[in-house]
């Protein structure tokens, strides 16, 4: 397994954002920017939206890495601040858990 690049991670997240936007009302769609808030106050996703985000990301990362990826294991829960706050923090988190 090779570690995926930062560019790959952002590209994958943006692809998932495109998929989520297909389901969201026009005025709730997410911008493809590292600053876009996802969860928490002011975040663009409700609980179901978060599930959709996590499931789609896990599938794409697992397929790319050839191994199961779990984004909501202890490593995510033990972070001081939620890794799902913004696209940028999510990207950093994925980078931190992806294999060397």
């Amino acid at each position: 397994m090779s570690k995926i690049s930062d560019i790959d991670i952002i590209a994958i997240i943006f692809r998932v954002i495109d998929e989520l936007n297909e389901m969201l009302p026009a005025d709730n769609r997410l911008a493809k920017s590292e600053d876009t808030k996802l969860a928490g106050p002011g975040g663009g996703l409700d609980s179901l939206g978060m599930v959709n985000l996590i499931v789609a990301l896990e599938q794409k990362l697992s397929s790319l890495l050839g191994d199961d990826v779990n984004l909501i294991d202890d490593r995510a829960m033990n972070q001081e601040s939620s890794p799902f706050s913004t696209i940028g923090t999510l990207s950093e988190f994925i980078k931190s858990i992806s294999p060397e």
Partner: protein
Amino acid sequence: MAVREHKCLLLSSFTIDNFAGYLSNAPYLPTLEVVTLPAYDNVIQSLLEYDNRVWNPKPEFVIIWSTPDRVCPSFRKVMDYKPVPDEVIADEVKEFADLVIEAARRTGQMFIPSWVIPGDDRGLGILDMKSPLGIRRALMKMNLQLMESLSSVPNIYILDTVRWMMLAGKGAYNPLLWYMAKIPFSNEVFKESVPDIKAAMAASLGLRKKLVIVDLDNTLWGGIVGEIGWENLRLGGHDPVGEAFADFQKGLKRLTDLGVVLGVVSKNEEAVALEGIRNHPGMVIRLEDLVAWRINWQDKAENIVSLTEELNLGLSSVVFIDDNPRERSRVREALPEVLVPEWPGNPLLYRKALDDLRCFDSITVTAEDRKKTVLYQSEMARKKDRRHLPSLNAWLKTLKIKIRAEELNQTNLPRAVQLLNKTNQMNLRTRRLSENVLKKWADQDFHDFWVVFVEDKFGESGLTGIISLEYSGKSAVIADFILSCRVIGRKAEETMLAFACRKAKEMGTTEVLAEYIATPKNKPCLDFFRRSGFVSKPEDDLFRWLPENEYLFPEEVTFLGTNE
């Protein structure tokens, strides 16, 4: 003009929000106001609560998407391999079907995706379709029983969930979505379902495509007939490409059974191309299957306009299929109303591309649909005949037109509903009603509803008109004035008005009113009323006739009266 949103209520036994999102955002017609309920697993409860606000105003569409275990409790035992008598399951399915039928009385069209279980669940494995304990055996029986229980209800349609799961592939069921959000299907399944469901809705609103125009060389057959001769075309036989072209033609021919008509627009020498159509043994489409053609060297967009004008069809009811991207681009640019699908470069994918179009659905198929090509061909023979005659009225007299009216009855009801919901051009108010609603409306004492049949020396055009009256005090208001484009201009319009005025007089009314409600397509109806003899204020859309003055039946027509 703002696009009207049609209310669509979703009832579901699982989290339906993802599907609701795709359905709301799908960019093609009809546009929907999708209503979901906050409560999870709300199907039975919602069907029982007649006074729930979700039923008011009445939804035009209702989708009931449930999992079998939530509506039939015994099925849960089946899933645990516990023996359950078939009759017990059958009773539960019937109970559910009865609830659905009751709800269908207070809605428009109702769509019910069939019951499935995840593909990963192998049940009893090799015995699953054989043993009385088999899960799939029970499920198949349940679906079959549901279909049979609901088949006679005209506004309920069972849709095939298995098809969407097959299209979605291996990931049709996603355990992550199930355990984290109680969604038993992947989003790919929802994405596959939306075009089918919207096609069904469009069909019920009369928005389906009615005419497919195809190119010839490398579209209907392999090769260029003008260069290699019809004997050398690739079509049928023991050749993968030839077989694929023949299969594509079979797909087109099958559409004609749904009331779609076929035309050809091709850049070719007409005599050479027609020789190919007539003589090639692999041709599935015969000359008599084509309602019209334009085979010449002119611009294809112009040819499409000329062909649709000849058939009295609007461009928005046309699909144009051509292998040449330049021709597709030209037609798309010149005629944006025409649907010009992207077309695969490989002929082996033609049939799949045709099947993927999903724009030809029909909510009913009548005997008239099946002979639509013949009906259009008769109409064109009339037009050809007319060219040899000095004036329109003189020509109409030679046609020996006979018109009769019938009150609404069980036999003519399906075709009446179809005409009511499909006709766009000669349509005064463009009311769209389900069978149930129309029947109730027509049964009321202060309403009269007739269907109109037209025939002439070339043959029968069938049930092609509707005229209905609503009596209010001393006024008779025309509720529907509808005429199929097949018979426009043959004095059926004037005959229907004369008949309506005579009826209004018999009912003792002192005025007949016709209020024109504009749509993007019904200007021909306004034009007719402006020259009909009914009076209106300048620029006003309310037309009036005083029955004390007799509205004369046109002398070119023999009116045979009604079946009263």
